[in-house]
């Protein structure tokens, strides 16, 4: 009851603040159009934003809010890194990329930076990582931070896991395994779904019906459960051969995800097929290959690319969740999903030992930053391609 009361009181307070603030601003500026035409909703929004900022400052000053301070600091550092990266891009390199960086928003710069860092880490994992991903180094459960007073060890800056493997090294190898597989899977899903979808759009008729209804059937089954089921069957086929199981996993996720790509490609394709330039190409006597890959595909790239970014994130998360459930990437190969699962119980220490609880959050953070980064870049690409059209 009192909770409701407090909520109501807070809302009423915000409303009063908004009203008073707007009236005050009108008086102070002598009725400038900015404030004269401001609706109450907008004023309320400003009041809410102000309250949120005040709350943030209060939280920052609270002694117990370690994670909040880390998050804010991390956010600021990312922003600064992206800013510096953009300045670098504006002054170094060939003229076209310089021009690109000049028009780039900060979010896209961050996304590109993140993707670059991940790519470098993934490609050069063997050189960067201080230890092997499978190496058991003795001391188990060393706390991250490298401070011996807190139970850390400077040799293992991010600590070790239950059986004494270096978390930093496993994170680095995880980039190779998880990102590499996700990329391959997404690519396969796009080749499959994209070409079939565009084909269905161009040919139409019974082919379209067969493909579309087939996709409907596949989509009707919840995807994670379906993947689990198929992987269970596949693990029997693979007979314990890890490489083969991973290959099956890539194939299964690619097929399941290609259904979404198929739908998008078909919908976009149908919009393009009715264009006069496609009709002109048909009347010229062009073959199916030219129609799909020369006339239609270039005009479908913008939505497909956006979908690629999103789909990559979903595939990535699916692999992580399958690994978390134990049927994805198999140990001892490092993988972020598996790492979250293995370290999960440390989250219980968050209240009294923030450093210990950091261990499971690191692989989760690695997943989150890449997902956000990819989406930032995709958003920017979409914005650019739509801007070119007008």
């Amino acid at each position, binding site marked *: 009851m009192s909770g409701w009361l407090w909520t109501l009181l807070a809302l009423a307070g915000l409303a009063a603040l908004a009203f008073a603030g707007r009236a005050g601003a009108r008086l102070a500026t002598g009725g400038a159009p900015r404030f*004269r035409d401001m609706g109450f909703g907008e004023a309320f929004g400003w009041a809410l934003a102000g309250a949120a900022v005040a709350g943030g400052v209060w939280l920052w000053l609270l002694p117990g809010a370690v994670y909040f301070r880390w998050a804010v600091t991390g956010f600021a550092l990312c922003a600064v890194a992206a800013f510096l990266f953009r300045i670098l891009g504006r002054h170094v390199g060939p003229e076209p990329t310089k021009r690109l960086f000049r028009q780039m928003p900060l979010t896209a710069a961050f996304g590109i930076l993140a993707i670059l860092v991940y790519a470098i880490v993934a490609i050069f994992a063997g050189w960067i990582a201080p230890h092997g991903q499978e190496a058991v180094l003795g001391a188990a459960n060393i706390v991250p931070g490298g401070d011996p007073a807190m139970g850390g060890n400077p040799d293992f800056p991010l600590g070790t896991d239950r059986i004494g493997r270096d978390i930093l090294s496993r994170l680095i190898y995880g980039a190779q395994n998880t990102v590499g597989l996700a990329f391959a899977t997404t690519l396969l899903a796009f080749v499959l779904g994209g070409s079939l979808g565009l084909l269905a759009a161009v040919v139409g008729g019974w082919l379209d019906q067969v493909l579309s209804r087939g996709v409907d059937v596949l989509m009707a089954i919840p995807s994670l459960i379906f993947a689990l089921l198929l992987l269970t069957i596949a693990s029997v086929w693979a007979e314990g051969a890890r490489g083969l199981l991973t290959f099956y996993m890539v194939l299964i996720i690619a097929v399941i995800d290609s259904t979404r790509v198929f739908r998008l490609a078909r919908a976009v394709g149908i919009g393009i097929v009715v264009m006069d330039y496609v009709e002109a190409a048909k009347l010229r006597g*062009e073959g199916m290959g030219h129609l799909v890959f020369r006339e239609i595909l270039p005009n479908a790239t913008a939505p497909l690319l956006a979908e690629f970014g999103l789909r990559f994130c979903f595939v990535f998360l699916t692999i992580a969740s399958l690994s978390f459930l134990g049927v994805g990437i198999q140990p001892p190969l490092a993988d972020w999903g598996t790492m979250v699962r293995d370290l999960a119980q440390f989250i219980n220490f968050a209240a009294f030992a923030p450093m210990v609880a950091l261990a499971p959050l690191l692989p989760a953070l690695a997943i989150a930053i890449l997902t956000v980064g990819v989406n930032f870049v995709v958003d920017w690409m979409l914005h650019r391609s739509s801007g070119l059209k007008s």
Partner: protein
Amino acid sequence: MSPLLEIRDLRIEGRSDEEWHPIINGVDLTLGRGEVLGLIGESGAGKSTLGLAAMGYVRDGVRVSGGSVVFDGIDLLNASAEEKRSLLGRRIAYVAQSAAASFNPAHKLIDQHVEAPLRHGVAERGESVEDAIELYRKLRLPNPDEIGFRYPHQVSGGQLQRAMTAMAMSCRPDLIIFDEPTTALDVTTQIEVLAAIRDIVQQFGTSAIYITHDLAVVAQMADRIKVLLRGDEVETAPTREMLEAPKEDYTKSLWAVRGYKRPEKPAPAAGAVPILSVENVTAAYGTATVLEHVSFDIHAGRTVAVVGESGSGKSTTARVITGLLPPRAGQVRFDGETLPPGYRQRSKDQLRQVQMIYQMADTALNPRQTVAQIIGRPVRFYRGLKGRRLRARVDELMSQIELDPATFRDRLPGELSGGQKQRVGIARALAAEPKLIICDEVTSALDQLVAEGILKLLARLQDELGLSYMFITHDLATVKAIADEVVVMKEGKVVEHGPKTEMFTPPHHPYTDLLLSSVPEMDPDWLDKLLAERGVEDLGEAATGKM
């Protein structure tokens, strides 16, 4: 008495590529009470922007950088949002170009009509509905008592446009902005809408700004005409004065466009094999028959214009000829030999001989291919040219359509103007070295000056290359300009067919007559004369009499 609307030195800028570009550079406009001002100019001249600015409104990404707009003593540019809200819809109303896109398809006409009076507290719902029916009657809508209770998709385009005018009238505004209200309509429908709008504006003494690119239309509607060119005023004068003696060169050139006429070529020799004969073609989409027993011939080197309203089967005929729609009965013969019904069964050479130029150059050119790729593809595909020879042929084609190869070769269609895009479309057709080109409304999306350029280009190419054209159009001015023969179509049938001179001299088939007489002329009295001839009494007054 002070004028109703006074715009002084208005400057408007639009934002693109992170920069502000001027759209209107200091235009003055004065509109008296009860006066109708025509605003004409090409696309991009700033007509619509100026019309919207007269309501104190600018679109997103556009800002007013100077000047003033005063409506009846109220400074619209500095008025508060609340003041503007009480004016718009009640004292100033707007009629958009496409009524079909402006009505909300989810609500009945009448519900949308009464919205403004209810919101502004002008009338109760009951009164407002009665008033709407009265307005529908005055605008000569069929079934005025019931039409309001239909959804927008159940009403034809011309009727929707009138319903929208009625809606603008619902609060009896002092000023209405008409933004190209008849541009999307057929000539025969346009007449009704024009007459209806004119009557109702006169009757209520409403002031209006009438925006259009069609001179003949504005001549019927406006008391005064203002000509705009790229955001600048060219000249303003009372309608008759402007029509009889335009002062500026630009205005004169606009007037002169309508004078372009190509001499009719001599009739083909008897017994000559026509390049294309459409023989007794019947075609249908599903169960709906759209063409019935259509027959006509096109002889080598001649231009045959196919005219009719939208839905008359003109474009379907083109689809049958190209093989996109195999006919139910009848056949198409090219150079004496029968063409297979579907384009898939035709040989590469048969496909090459018939090329098309489309109405909307925007959708006819692949936006992701450069001009050289677009033009080069047919050359490569049919002639197998590659490398330097391909490039030379593309350059040759580009100079034929009067585009400089060095400048335009690597541009994308998005970087071309409407007229340039249409030229590229023509070049793509020429690249196949066809004998017959089907031109589907190629000039109707273009400004008059640009359209004239395209027509002259087509005529020149015909003389140089001996091409035959099938020219699909609803614009009889175009027909008069370039056709040798005319085929009039209505509801999927050929109504009349013959050489141009014969077609434009009476006696006509009644439908041809209707079509011909509906084309607006540059005479300000043309609409009155026409209505008198057709025996349509001035229904506006008749309706007043009934009140």
